[in-house]
């Protein structure tokens, strides 16, 4: 990207726009379109087929191949979407650099780890011991 609007000093200090805003914008939107299908599907389907506290009901639900794939997609897409959204909220409201960077890093890592655990849990229910 050419940077005719940026001064030499600004370039040296790495200040100014990161040049990644469009990617964030597009990712926020394609994930929202996917979630507009996945989230209602999960809420209605899980409520109607599980519909109670029974352990066997949740195992029956998660061992259905369509449900397993749907839940893995829901976790992957929703965690990506919420990380993008929270990144925007942190950038908007947290102005102190140290706190901002710490929260941005936590927001980048923690949901990733939890999502990996959730996907592994679905695999374990289907293929585990």
């Amino acid at each position, binding site marked *: 990207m050419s940077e005719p609007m940026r001064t030499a000093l600004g370039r040296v200090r790495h200040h100014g726009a990161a040049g990644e805003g469009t990617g964030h914008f597009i990712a926020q*939107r394609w994930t929202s379109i996917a979630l507009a299908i996945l989230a209602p599907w999960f809420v*209605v389907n899980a409520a109607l087929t599980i519909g109670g506290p029974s*352990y066997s009901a*949740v195992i029956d639900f998660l061992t259905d191949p369509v449900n397993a794939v749907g839940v893995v997609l829901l976790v992957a897409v929703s965690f990506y979407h919420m990380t993008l959204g929270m990144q925007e909220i942190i950038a908007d409201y947290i102005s102190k650099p140290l706190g901002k960077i710490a929260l941005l890093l936590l927001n980048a890592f923690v*949901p990733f780890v939890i999502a990996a655990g959730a996907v592994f*849990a679905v695999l374990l229910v289907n293929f585990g011991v």
Partner: protein
Amino acid sequence: MAGASRPNNRPISPHLSVWRWHATMASSIFHRLTGMALYGAAIGLAFWLMAAAAGPEMYEPLMDVLMSPLGQVALYLVVAAIAYHLANGIRHLVFDTGAGLNPSDADLTAWFAILFAIATPIGLWALLTFGGA
């Protein structure tokens, strides 16, 4: 600033404490609030899946919490938050095309999103209680 005078009748940024609430402003604030709430709900979903994988001795205590009155209220609010974020998210996708941005349309769709969020958990509860098998 001493000695500096502010010209009258110039628009100034909204001070939330003295700002009259209106539907479009509420819809924007609710979108962020429900987004943050659903961040927590998604983490809850992940732990629900992990509890299911861990076995009944982990899953049943979690169900005891979710079936308690407080747990049921929480689930009800999560469904409302999903419904709101869904309806208002679609509203924003329409806004992205440039449509629906005039005040009357934006007001109407904001009210729709709010009413949808109130109606959806009631509808799901009715479906579960009175509907089907």
